[in-house]
């Protein structure tokens, strides 16, 4: 009776494993039909596959120089931005005194280039005046456009003497005749901003929106990107809580930012159009200028504009890791080959395979028939890891590097350890005189505790390092976490059920010398009847009782029932 439920639950576990394997296979298979990024072949990292080398040169105004600190800071920020887009182990290094080389696998698209080169200086300014995005003199005259372009955009000047001093950032007194003239002449179709231009945050700014359809005179900067504590992207929720198709970037401000934001929205809210608008500029261009609907005092804001999923992610990642101290332009973009050839990957895999064969031979030598369980479990683990890597390289941008391959090979040992802990426990139980079926159940309860505790240590290592580090360490942590989870899945859903089923076969349960559970050999040396056995270990009989009591208190009700049933089965069948 108890036996058939064992078989049932073992079959159920195996069925779950099958569902997981089939699920991932199906997902990737479906994905490969609908999404060009999905494939059953995992993507390889820079060292194995090559990629693109982008050389970035700083955008400097005349007389401006880039310092080593600025360059190092830019490297650190760019590395974090690149890391945020996936686990790809990219390379970000300085070259000479001014340039930065970013090497990434694959070919970067516009979004990726924007992610690495844009300074991403975010500023919030109050809107003073808005207008159509063309020069005022002649709306559709192309000649006038040319004139407007030659009309040099003079740097904004502080109010002159005859101009009353503005009282706050929304004061129209900021608009000096020079600024008005600059605004009138501005044509958004022209290249009116110099690349890398840095605006004085204390004076008004005359600029256009990113699409070039509207132009603005904006007040001085009131809140900027440095006050953002976190940024993420997501879809906008409608008033009923349903998500819409509009993508937005959600911002969280630090306390200082929250306070200024509250003050500004309080001031803008009662003003008339367009001075109740609050413009958000990115590197000098207005992304959006929403009307102030309410006083925002909770320190969070949402930017909507013409975003899609990817561009909102790019902006969120840029804002999260801060703006670059200087802007960069792409000086060259070239394909680079792999530093390690295909032959080296093959050699590495071959070495791993030889190692695997040695493991199989050793486990056959130690565990005889049980080696089938070991090999089977390793095969399942390998298939699962492969599927997960293919899946994650599609969804998370994971790339397999040579160090990753080494990590996977090492994981063989750590995965097999779970089986060894389990098998040794089963042997201990047989030494105590239990028959195999009972031994397997008892050993499982004890060994799963050990396996869970030790895997928890590995997983803590993986999760902590993944969240807190950058670059290669992050790639390593990802591989470690992946193999730890796979180890747990395999031992729970494959190794244990398989052993339960095998324990019922005659070959194993009779303690055949080749089964790995040779009952004669295991019992011969140590077993002297239960209880007496413990004396050999200098334990009082009372202690043995307490130990089992302690074990019993740690059991759940169902475990206790199962054990009772097992003991009964042992009494009737064991003699």
């Amino acid at each position, binding site marked *: 009776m108890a036996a058939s439920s064992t078989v049932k639950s073992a079959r159920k576990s195996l069925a779950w494993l099958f569902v997981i394997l089939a699920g991932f296979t199906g997902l990737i298979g479906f994905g490969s039909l609908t999404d060009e990024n999905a494939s059953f072949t995992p993507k390889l990292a820079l060292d194995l596959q090559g990629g693109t080398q982008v050389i970035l040169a700083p955008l400097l105004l005349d007389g401006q120089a880039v310092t080593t600190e600025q360059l190092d800071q830019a490297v650190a920020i760019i590395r974090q931005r690149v890391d945020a887009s996936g686990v790809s182990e990219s390379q970000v290094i300085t070259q*000479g005194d001014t340039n930065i080389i970013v090497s990434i696998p694959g070919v970067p698209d516009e979004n990726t280039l924007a992610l690495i080169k844009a300074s991403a200086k975010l500023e919030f300014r109050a809107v003073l005046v808005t207008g159509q995005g063309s020069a005022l003199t002649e709306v559709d005259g192309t000649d006038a456009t040319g004139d407007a372009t030659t009309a040099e955009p003079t740097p904004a000047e502080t109010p002159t003497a005859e101009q009353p001093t503005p009282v706050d950032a929304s004061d129209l007194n900021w608009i000096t005749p020079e600024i008005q003239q600059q605004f009138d002449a501005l044509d958004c179709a022209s290249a009116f901003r110099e690349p890398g231009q840095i605006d004085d945050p204390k004076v008004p700014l005359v600029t256009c929106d990113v699409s070039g359809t509207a132009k603005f005179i904006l007040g001085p900067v009131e809140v900027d990107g440095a006050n953002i504590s976190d940024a993420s992207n997501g879809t906008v929720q409608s008033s009923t809580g349903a998500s819409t198709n509009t993508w937005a970037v959600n911002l969280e401000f630090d306390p200082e930012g929250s306070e200024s934001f509250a003050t500004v929205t309080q001031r803008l809210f009662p003003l008339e159009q367009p001075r109740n608008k609050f413009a958000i500029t990115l590197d000098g261009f207005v992304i959006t200028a929403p009307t102030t609907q309410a006083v925002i005092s909770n320190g969070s804001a949402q930017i909507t504009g013409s975003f899609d999923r990817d561009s909102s992610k790019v902006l969120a990642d840029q804002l999260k890791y801060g703006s670059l101290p200087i802007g960069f332009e792409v000086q060259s973009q070239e394909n680079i080959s792999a530093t390690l050839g295909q032959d080296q990957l093959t050699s590495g895999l071959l070495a791993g395979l030889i190692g695997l064969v040695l493991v199989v031979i050793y486990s056959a030598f130690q565990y005889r028939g049980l080696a089938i369980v070991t090999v089977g479990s390793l095969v399942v683990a390998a298939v699962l890891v492969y599927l997960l890597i293919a899946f994650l390289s599609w969804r998370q941008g994971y790339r397999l590097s040579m160090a990753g391959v080494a990590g996977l090979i090492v994981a063989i*040992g750590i995965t097999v350890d779970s089986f060894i802990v389990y098998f040794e426990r089963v042997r201990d139980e047989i030494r105590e005189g239990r028959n195999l079926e009972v031994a397997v159940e008892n050993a499982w309860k004890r060994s799963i505790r050990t396996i869970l505790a030790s895997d928890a240590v590995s997983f803590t290592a993986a999760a902590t390092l993944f969240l807190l580090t950058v670059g290669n360490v992050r790639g390593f942590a990802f591989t470690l976490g992946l193999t730890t989870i796979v180890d747990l899945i395999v031992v729970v859903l494959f190794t244990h059920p398989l052993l339960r089923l095998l324990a019922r076969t005659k070959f194993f349960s009779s303690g055949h010398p080749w089964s790995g559970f040779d009952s004669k050999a295991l019992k011969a040396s140590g077993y002297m009847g239960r209880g007496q056995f413990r004396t050999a270990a*200098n334990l009082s009989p009372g*202690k043995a009782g307490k130990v089992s009591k*302690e074990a019993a208190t740690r059991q759940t009700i169902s475990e206790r029932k199962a054990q009772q049933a097992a003991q009964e089965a042992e009494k009737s069948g064991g003699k």
Partner: protein
Amino acid sequence: MSKLSEMGNNLYSGRVSIDIVGRRKLWYAIALVLVVLAIVAPVARGGFNFGIEFRGGSEFRIDGVGSTSQQVARDAVTSVEPESQPIVTSIGVDSVRIQTEQLDDVTTEEIRIALASAYGVESGAVTSSFIGANWGADVTSKALNGLIVFLILVSVLMALYFRTFKMSVAALAALAHDIVITAGIYALTGFEVTPAAVIGLLTILGYSLYDTVVVFDKVRENTVDVEFSETTTFASQVNLAVNQTLVRSVNTSVVAVLPVASILFIGAFILGVGTLRDIALALFIGIIVGTYSSIFIASPVYVHLREKEPRFLIKP
């Protein structure tokens, strides 16, 4: 049955017992000597040989070459600097990029000429510049942060699971022992310290704790209620636990070391995979030391910390 499992029977029953806990002064002495050696010897030898990824280096670029063969560049560089392990990449269709450790001006010029003649181009087509470290200070400081947070988390986790912080202390002592010795031996070999080697060291960190937890789980099981026993002591119960898990420890370390040894010896020395040599070496030493320390350091230290507790001294 193999000898090992027969040994396992005897160890399990206590018929054969290796006195590990009792001889702890000996293990402490060995550990002290090894740790001191691991610190002093590499320093005497000139410290770690950090690679280009950590220190930055020199970069050469050759434009307009007929063939972008990577071997040509390696040979040209090693003809001038035999110790160098250049990273060669081809760029676009007719350019080659070579990164080496930082070189002085004279050597840089020599390599420029060697590269130009090797690829059959004018020496003007070979440009050189300095490059910064990919594994810069920012990566290191973030990694250290992560490490400290991890060690605190895992100590708390172990203290909660085992219900005594003394196991955490013992495990961390064993961990420090493993890391110092592994790093020391690595430095002694004079292998270049690459990101892969550092990652190998981080793997050892995880493995050492993992292995200690497995042994300690058995120790915990054996020492429950030991204060009520009239015939046994805390120390002898820990010793029994270590003996009972000895077969598992040997089997696990053999299984873990086999693939690593295969990469290290077959991969690096026969097939010539340079990249895997560094990580495999760090792992090879680390796994052996990590298994050793769970038995000979962590368990004796744990006994040391606890056996003087009043409840283990006064028998009812």
